[in-house]
Structure formats: structure tokens, C-alpha cells
């Protein structure tokens, strides 16, 4: 056995001959460790997540599709996750990484419950935690391949909270946010309505839901990796309504008959 501290426990070259690093494409730099595995690309993916602030809180939506490349693989996947009393995390990107995040947040909630009494996790805490997880993983060159929205309330001000975080650890906040295709298709529509602080203060729950569901329809029309079945979360103080199995309604596909490739 090799007693060199940097190659402890490895077979001695003198006895067994030189190790063939080409086996499993192991690089010689990491040869004393196991081959390193890291996410190189997302596999099973979710598409856009949309969210807006409104009068009493935040509304968030994501469809129920998980794609395997261009294959619509799973059509009953929940991508909105409730954390604590009034926080929702919406995730797009790799679904297995999302499930890892689910577990991390679950652990966080349990640990937090043990350690600190009369203290609850609010949206800004969850967002800070997630951004550090994402940033640390990207710094290890082993990212969690997701873009997430975190909606809820700020612990200090009690104001509606909505922020974004992605696989690079990049974060930003705004009155209306979207991930994936939504940032191209839905954001212009959302910003048209929510163009000022006053517009947010005046937007009712009904108007907000209508706006979001309109955008989900636009996404289903134009994003090939989307589904007409989606979940909607209405986040108000100490109250989250997670409505599942909604459908895009009143759609018209008559234009499709004039376009080659839409099934004719």
C-alpha cells in the first residue's frame, strides 16, 4: 500500500504497475479520489414560473409538466412548494434538483422548528437560504440546475416579497417576475399592468388571477414545453391557497388550421 499522504491507501506502482487513468476517464489530478460527478445539463425539466405582487400579497403559477427533452414525460408534477406559513417557492429547470431543494427546505423547516421557538421562516429567509445554496453549488462547479421564484412576505416590513434566484446564485426582485420562456412572453404583459408601485397597491386578487391565467394561456400557445394544466398559489398574510389542476380556458386554436405543421 502507498503510504504517501496524498495517495494513501492506493496500490503501489512498484508492485502493481502504473494505474490507467483512462479507465472511466478519470483525470490524473483527482486520481486519488473517486471520479467526480456533477450536473452537466438538466434532464427532466419544468418550464416557466410566473408571479406578481398584488394588494394583499403575491400570486404565483406554474404548469404541471415535466419534459424529457422534447418529450412531454410527466403531466402531473407540482412545481409550487409551500414553505412555512406563507411562503411559496416556484421552481423551473431540473426536476430532480427541485426535489433536492424540496428536501433541503423540509430539513430547514424541521431544524428551525427545533432550535428557535416562536420564530417562523418568512419568504426573505427562504430566499436568502436558497441563494446561498445555489451560489455555493455553482462555486463548486456542481450547480443545482434551477431558476426559482420565492413569494411571500418580508419578515421585518411585512410587505409582499417576491424575488428570483437561479443556478448561478444571481438574485433580483421586482413587482412581476418570470422564469424561462415566461421572461420573454409573460413579463411584457405583466409589466403593462404593473407599471408602478401604485398599480401594485391597487391590484385586486381577482384582477391578479385573471392577469396570471391570461399569461398561462399565452405560454401554452407559444411555449412548446408547456401544458394547459397548472397550479396557482394565492399568498396572503398567514394564508396560502394552493389551487391545483387548473386549466387554460377559452382558447382558440382556429389559427392552427392555416399553418403547416400544426397537425395537417
Amino acid at each position: 500500500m502507498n503510504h504517501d499522504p496524498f495517495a494513501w491507501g492506493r496500490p503501489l506502482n512498484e508492485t502493481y504497475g502504473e494505474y490507467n487513468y483512462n479507465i472511466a476517464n478519470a483525470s490524473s489530478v483527482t486520481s486519488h479520489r473517486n471520479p467526480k460527478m456533477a450536473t452537466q445539463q438538466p434532464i427532466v425539466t419544468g418550464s416557466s414560473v410566473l408571479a406578481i405582487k398584488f394588494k394583499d400579497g403575491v400570486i404565483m403559477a406554474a404548469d404541471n409538466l415535466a419534459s424529457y427533452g422534447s418529450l412531454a414525460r410527466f403531466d402531473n408534477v407540482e412545481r409550487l412548494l409551500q414553505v412555512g406559513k406563507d411562503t411559496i417557492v416556484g421552481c423551473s429547470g431540473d426536476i430532480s434538483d427541485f426535489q433536492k431543494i424540496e428536501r433541503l427546505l423540509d430539513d430547514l423547516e424541521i431544524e428551525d422548528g427545533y432550535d428557535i421557538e416562536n420564530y417562523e421562516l418568512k419568504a426573505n429567509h427562504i430566499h436568502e437560504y436558497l441563494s446561498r445554496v445555489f451560489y455555493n453549488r455553482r462555486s463548486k462547479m456542481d450547480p443545482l440546475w434551477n431558476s426559482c421564484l420565492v413569494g411571500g412576505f418580508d419578515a421585518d416590513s411585512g410587505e409582499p416579497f417576491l424575488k428570483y434566484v437561479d443556478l448561478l446564485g444571481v438574485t433580483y426582485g421586482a413587482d412581476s417576475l418570470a422564469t424561462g420562456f415566461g421572461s420573454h412572453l409573460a413579463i411584457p404583459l405583466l409589466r403593462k399592468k404593473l407599471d408602478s408601485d401604485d398599480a401594485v397597491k391597487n391590484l385586486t386578487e381577482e384582477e391578479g388571477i385573471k392577469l396570471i391565467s391570461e399569461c398561462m394561456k399565452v405560454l401554452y400557445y407559444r411555449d412548446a414545453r408547456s401544458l394547459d394544466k397548472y397550479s396557482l398559489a394565492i399568498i396572503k398574510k398567514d394564508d396560502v391557497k394552493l389551487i391545483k389542476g387548473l386549466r387554460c380556458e377559452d382558447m382558440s386554436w382556429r389559427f392552427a388550421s392555416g399553418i403547416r405543421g400544426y397537425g395537417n
Partner: protein
Amino acid sequence: MSASSFAEGKATIASEYSSEVRREPIEHQFNPYSDNGGTILGIAGKDFAVLAGDTRHTTGYSINSRYEPKVFDAGDGFLISANGFSADGNALVKRFQNQLKWYHFNHGKKMGIRSGARFIQHLLYGKRFFPYYVHTIIAGLDEEGKGAVFSFDPIGSYEREQCRAGGSAASLIMPFLDNQVNFKNQLDPESNGTKKKELRYLSLEEVLKLVKDSFSSATERHILVGDGLEIMIVTKEGVRTEYYPLKKD
């Protein structure tokens, strides 16, 4: 493409007989960096310093947010901004703020601006081989109460200066600052072109005017700059913030 390259283990498909056999691996690597645009600007005066930045946050051609602050009051009269890849920028600022707290616990006194600058050099150089992709500027008052601006490259090389622009529109703003703050290329009109215009400290009003002009010009000609301008001003009275809207297009 020789057969030996297959033997060396470069092939990506096990079978040599496959019609899709690829002798060289497809290079695809995760890119840990991105550019979030924006621009920052610091100017030191006689007994004040300002650090300003636009509030637009972008990736590619998308505007992520029209108000995402990137100039921070770190405490002890330090203004700091790290412009470039925003995840690295925020990480750097947070690390600095955290260490500043520890400095207070350990030494029970305010950190001087020159110590702060040297410390930031170490934070940046500590990641020499996986750098923070940011142009960092700090502003504050020195031990004599004079305005001070320090600017850093991504790996910690730094210098004290009278003024500095950083970020995407730095190349547009910096020559304007040379001309209007340090009076470069300007002559004394009295001397009939024989003497340079003499240097003098600018007043806070003059500096704020230059900052606003710089940013409205940069907004006009640079697509990653705009939406809002946040100016932080540090004097012996403390730190205050001013906000001015910029064009949103």
C-alpha cells in the same frame, strides 16, 4: 482522427462500429459566470465622497429588474459597490460587511478606509484562480476627513483615485470624468494656451451635476444602463441616499 485516440479513451461512444461514433468528446462545460450589466461611478470631494450606480439589472437583452440596488452602505462610512456578475458582487459585499462586524467585535473601533481597501484586496485575491467577476469601487472619508475613492480590478489590484467609473459604460463615462473632474486637456484661458487649468476641489453640487450628466449620457448610448440612478453621499454627518429616474427604454 487516429485510431489511437480511441485507444486513449477519448471516444464518447463505446462501439467503434456505430455510425454516430464521435472520436472527440463534445466540449460542453457549465459556465459559472454571467454579466448583469449596469454601471457605477465614484467621485471624491474635499470633505465628501459619492458612489453612484444605476438600478437596472439585466441578463443578455432581458431587463430582470428596474430597481435592484447595487451600491451599499457597509457601515463605518463605507460605500461599496461591486459591478459585473451580480452573484459575485453580492457575495463580496456580504463577506465584507460580515468581516467588518467581526472587526468591531475584535477591535472595538471603526475600520479606516485604507484598511478596508486593503482588506478588499485580500478578499479578491483570495479567489485569484476563480475570480469574483466584478469591478469594485469603495468610497468614504480618510483619516483626515478628506473624500476617498478606491477602485479594484477583479483580482484585487487597487489604487486610490479622485474619481472612477466602473461597469458596462465605464468607457463612456471615464474620459468625461478626466475632462471635468481632473480638467484633463483643459487650459487656463488667461494664459493664452500656455498653462494647464489648475486643479481644484469640486463642490458637492458640482459633483452631483456631473454624476447625473454622466448617467443620463450613458443611458442614452448604452443599452445595459438605465431605469434609475441611486447616489450615495458620505460626509462627516453620515451617509444619505438620493434617487433619480433614468430613461426606461
